[in-house]
């Protein structure tokens, strides 16, 4: 089955490319909210975070309404590689330095609990999502001097089940590795659909194609003017769309690239593989590669491999543009695995928190009944499942030993350097917004398939001409905090390098923290006017 590479795919997923998961799912029709409702809890976001929270709350007897502006899993949950792990994105030895040994044990325990909860949910609700327990192998990237020993000992101290192995099963090059026991993998879209069914069976209501335009402590109001009044509000939109300032200095958006390659059935064991990351590319946050295998057809499995991360809207770290990053992933993958034809390509976005740990809990500087789930790093599936447990406890007034550890209002001074770097990054971005009194482009010079920021009439516009020659013009200012957007030629989107907001080439918002579409314009007699 081939990826449906069609720009209109933005209606079912947040980019031009369609992931293997979305391609192999039956997508339900949109079911918008068309009446005012009152409920116990309203949840914004129909990905794994929102659905996990909804499921846990429904289990506890709460009345739930969930709204999602696209389809279930049309955001980052559908673009994951779907691993449940205790082998975390950030190393356990780093967590020990930041949080201490006792809290690192808590971090490990929270992820282990999340996997167990997901497994139990799948069994209890009879969700057919190819869930299976597997081992995961962390091996050294060539640029890594030797962090494995340190990580092994730290993981052991944290209570993670690990072993040192001399050889990694399945890979072409012989490598020592840490084997993480009891990891898991699954089909995320099937899991999400199973969760939806379970939530609705417990009385929860789920509405898709429903955009929450206004979100506050009383509930939400949709673009169409319908309201959901609720005693508790949870925003689980990957990047919170109800938070203007307090989170965005503490987490940073990165894009990651995934290929799906055919591999002969049975050649590889069922496992997860990760390298320790390219310290040459970024010593502070080395982008790593991650691999899994999933059944494809009678003769093949599909090997899903990802990596080559870069800051959203900024590929200057290696000067390799977005659309060429798949080649780098392929080159790395072929070095280690006997793959065949590449049948899928897609990219996703993660938020790297300042201290490596996600943010789950009360929205900072907001009413006590408003909660957020964000900062998933590369462990979104596990982290968001855990969010269901934690948020449910908080809303139900139950004591939870992880509350302080994960609270979004925390500020970890030991890792505050990225915060100032982020502020400088934004400041310099704003400073570059200078008036250009001479239009540098005329619209007719933009070629088919080209997208760029254009200075015209003392303003900046995002302009894209599709393959058929049709021109789309939008404002080049992000609707979150007005940073200048960057063109993502790979996914045909406008991406904000400040905080990770993304928009289709037509200006429709597809990633927070922006919550509004970009103003659109039309070309008239050599100039532009607002639509």
């Amino acid at each position, binding site marked *: 089955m081939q990826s449906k590479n069609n720009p209109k795919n933005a209606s079912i997923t947040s980019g031009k490319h369609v992931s293997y998961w979305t391609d192999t799912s039956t997508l339900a029709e949109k079911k918008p909210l068309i009446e005012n409702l009152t409920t116990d809890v309203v949840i914004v976001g129909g990905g794994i975070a929102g659905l996990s929270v909804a499921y846990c709350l429904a289990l506890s007897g709460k009345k739930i309404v969930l709204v999602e502006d696209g389809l279930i899993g049309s955001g980052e949950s559908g673009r994951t590689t779907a691993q449940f792990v205790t082998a975390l994105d950030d190393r356990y030895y780093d967590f020990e330095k930041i949080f201490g040994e006792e809290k690192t044990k808590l971090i490990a325990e929270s992820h282990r609990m999340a996997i167990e909860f997901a497994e139990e949910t799948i069994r209890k609700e009879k969700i057919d999502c190819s869930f299976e327990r597997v081992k995961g192998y962390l091996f050294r990237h060539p640029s890594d001097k030797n962090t494995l020993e340190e990580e092994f000992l730290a993981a052991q101290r944290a209570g993670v089940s690990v072993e040192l192995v001399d050889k990694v099963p399945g890979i072409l090059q012989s490598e020592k590795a840490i084997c993480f026991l009891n990891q898991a993998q699954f089909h995320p879209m099937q899991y999400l659909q199973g969760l939806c069914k379970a939530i609705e069976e417990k009385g929860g209501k789920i509405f898709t194609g429903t955009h929450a335009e206004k979100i506050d402590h009383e509930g939400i109001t949709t673009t169409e003017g319908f309201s959901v009044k609720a005693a508790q509000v949870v925003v689980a939109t990957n990047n919170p769309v109800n938070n*203007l300032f307090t989170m965005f200095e503490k987490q940073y958006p990165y894009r990651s690239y995934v290929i799906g390659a055919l591999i002969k059935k049975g050649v590889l064991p069922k496992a997860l593989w990760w390298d320790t990351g390219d310290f040459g590319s970024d010593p502070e946050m080395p982008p790593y590669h991650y691999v899994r295998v999933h059944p494809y057809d009678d003769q093949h499995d599909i090997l899903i491999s990802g990596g080559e991360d870069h800051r959203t809207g900024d590929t200057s770290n290696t000067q390799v543009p977005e659309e060429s990053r798949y080649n780098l992933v392929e080159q790395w993958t072929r070095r280690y695995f006997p793959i065949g034809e590449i049948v899928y390509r897609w990219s996703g976005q993660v938020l790297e928190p300042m201290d490596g740990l996600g943010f789950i809990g009360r929205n900072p500087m907001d009413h006590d009944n408003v909660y957020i789930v964000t900062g998933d790093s590369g462990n979104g599936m596990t982290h968001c499942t855990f969010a269901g447990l934690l948020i449910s406890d908080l809303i139900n007034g139950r004591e939870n030993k992880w509350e302080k550890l994960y609270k979004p209002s925390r500020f970890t001074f030991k890792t505050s350097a990225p915060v100032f770097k982020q502020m400088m990054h934004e*400041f310099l971005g*704003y*400073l*570059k*917004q*200078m*008036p250009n009194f001479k239009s540098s482009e005329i619209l007719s010079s933009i070629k088919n398939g080209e997208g760029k920021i254009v200075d015209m*009439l*003392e*303003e*900046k516009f995002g302009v894209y001409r599709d393959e058929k020659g049709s021109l789309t013009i939008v*404002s080049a*200012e992000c*609707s*979150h*905090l*007005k940073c200048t957007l960057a063109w993502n030629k790979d996914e045909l989107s406008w991406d904000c390098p400040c905080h990770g907001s993304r928009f289709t080439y037509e200006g429709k918002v597809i990633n927070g923290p922006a919550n*509004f579409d970009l103003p659109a314009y039309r070309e008239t007699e050599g100039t532009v006017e607002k639509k």
Partner: protein
Amino acid sequence: MGTIYFAIAIFGLTAIIGMYLLSLILRDKQIPKGAAIIHGLFAVIALVLLIVYCVGNEPGPLVSIVVFSIAALGGFIMGYRDITGRKVPKWLGVVHGLTALVGFIILLMFAFF
């Protein structure tokens, strides 16, 4: 008095950028943040110079400082509204500019009369 003259010069530059930004507000155009930041930074620097002068000299341009501070508050409100996606009211832009102008005239009177 050198400090005062320097402050006047910086306020002058601030005003030139400010007049351009006001023209954008009045024409419902995007506000280039770089220009707005420089405008604000110049204004703050000039205001700080006036305050520094006051610390070491009497009398100081206190009225001018107060008026500029009010203008700065207006500027901050406009900047906040702009980056958070709200329209900057034209009247606020005009009042901000006029307030700053009044502060400037008072400062000129202090410096030269």
